């Protein structure tokens, strides 16, 4: 079993981004996903700077995969996708446009492609998929049921730690919360390093707003399910980046690395984000 670090879902400052990936160089993760999944307007780093980070990670022995947008509407977004797909990189496809452009080369099925049965899995494998990241809505037993039908050679990955991406819209909710619209957003999402927590009127943390994406307020933490996931055939566990204000991410990696090595009693540090930890896609699922 291996560990991956998922794409950075938030709009961090340049120093934060550089510091995060520099720290990863010496940490026990096998794959690192780079690239923007949420909003094409975000450009904290230029393409050349991302490429430099990718080279450093690759030199440190990490497999680098470029994640692509989950909601693609504009011609400019398709053009940017075309440039990424033309590079000799492995992409994580989060929209069928990316599968179409990957053109038979190896790619990763991202968590935002709806793959719920063996027929779909085999179809995408025949088009070049070599790894499948399960949709967030599939709980570990459902992932296991689907893995029983997977084609030979297809790896599987599960979102194991982080605030869960739940929905995408044309509307920017981070801007709306500040009475702005998307065309005049002022990149206010950069004020929310781990998303903007949305509470019910009873102050219960429910969702987190992250640009056009809505996440769970709760952080999914599958540390306690590592053995179950391994037994059902899951190959890779994905840890989704969070800021140092939320959690010491290096300690999260270390805890999962220990669990993957089969050590008993590994513990994640508590999350400072409102909502705490949950196990499945449901907010109240604690076990």
């Amino acid at each position, binding site marked *: 079993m291996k560990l991956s670090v998922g794409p950075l879902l938030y709009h961090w400052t340049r120093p934060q981004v550089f510091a995060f990936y520099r720290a990863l160089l010496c940490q026990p993760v096998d794959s690192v996903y780079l690239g923007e999944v949420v909003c094409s307007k975000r450009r904290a780093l230029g393409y050349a700077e991302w490429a430099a980070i990718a080279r450093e990670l690759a030199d440190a022995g990490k497999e680098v995969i470029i994640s692509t947008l989950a*909601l693609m509407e504009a011609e400019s977004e398709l053009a940017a996708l075309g440039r990424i797909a033309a590079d000799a990189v492995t992409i994580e496809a989060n929209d*069928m446009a990316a599968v179409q452009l990957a053109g038979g080369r190896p790619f990763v099925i991202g968590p935002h492609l709806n793959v719920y049965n063996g027929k*779909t899995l085999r179809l995408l494998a025949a088009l070049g998929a070599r790894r499948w990241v399960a949709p967030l809505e599939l709980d570990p037993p459902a992932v296991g049921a689907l893995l029983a039908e997977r084609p030979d050679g297809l790896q599987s990955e599960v979102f194991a730690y982080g605030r869960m991406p*739940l929905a995408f*819209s044309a509307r920017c909710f981070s801007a709306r919360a500040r009475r702005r619209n998307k065309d005049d957003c002022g990149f206010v999402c950069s004020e929310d390093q781990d998303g903007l927590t949305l509470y019910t009127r*009873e102050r219960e943390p429910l969702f987190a707003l992250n640009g056009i994406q809505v996440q769970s307020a709760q952080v999914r933490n599958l540390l306690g399910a590592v053995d179950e996931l391994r037994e059902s055939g899951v190959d890779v566990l994905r840890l989704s980046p969070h800021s140092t204000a939320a959690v010491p991410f290096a300690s999260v990696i270390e805890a999962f690395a220990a669990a993957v090595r089969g050590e008993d009693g590994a513990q994640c540090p508590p999350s400072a984000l409102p909502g705490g930890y949950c196990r499945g896609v*449901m907010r109240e699922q604690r076990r």
Partner: protein
Amino acid sequence: MPEQSAVELVCPAGTLPALHAAVDNGADAVYLGLRDGLNARNFPGLNFSLAEARRGIEYAHARQVRVFVALNVYPQPSRWAAATAAVDAAADAGADAVILADPGLLAYAAERHPALNRHLSVQASASNWRALEFYQQRFGVRRAVLPRVLSLAQVRRVIERVGMEIEVFGFGSLCIMVEGRCGLSAHVTGESPNTHGVCSPAHAVRWQERPTGRQARLNGVLIDEFAPRESAGYPTLCKGRFEALGAIVHALEEPTSLSVLDVLAQLLAAGVSAIKVEGRQRSPAYVAQVTRALRVALESCRRDPAGYRPPAGCAATLERLAEGRTHTLGAYSRPWQ
């Protein structure tokens, strides 16, 4: 089989009486779902048995109205056999098309029933021409329903780029998230469109009277509280009031309906093949009124596109039937985004 109209008015039929209402009031096509959790309106008391579907198809075809069967679920392994059997049944019953979202099911339908029209459901989240091209090339999809995330200009460009029919939503409840990529309901109730064909399911709804007002809860979670005399809407998660940055607001969207009445001429000029009405969960009376209003508006627009104004009677009818009695253009209008 009925001929296809230039621009089809596609109306919802949750039950046989609703199908009759749509057909009798000017629908060019109706869409319906089969029972047993095989479509995105998996509600109690809704949907068709196979025998009912046959009767509905017979009734519609006798009046030159086409019938589409929505099988827009993502079947997991335990439901795969039931889903493919439903595709077979729809073909056998003489449906004019099946509306599918799942790539595996699309492949199955293309292999087993090549002559049966395949429409791409909005649940497939295909929001750009490259994705649409994928479904067209791989599965011979003839028509696609666009997610409610594109601006009017983007709809126009998609139609210019793809050689397939494009259907857009014209009226009804407004999903503000990309369809097929929304798990808000899963997070709160464990059931969502992708896994159970439902959003904010009725069995999870509880209304509670409190001194401060009327509370709407979904699986125990407070979605909104309404002051006395304030109109209380169904607690759909994206229409709730929540606290963001210290203020109680409709952080995602207000309770409102989508209506394209004001931009009908632009949509027709863009080349859409069909206008879809949401609402298989609605009553036959609602379906009748919405169908009639949109039929009148479409005819008015077709007679004189340049001079089109929403007919006053239609606007009033749709306003009265809209959620919260207000409507929006949603993402068709850039400032909404």
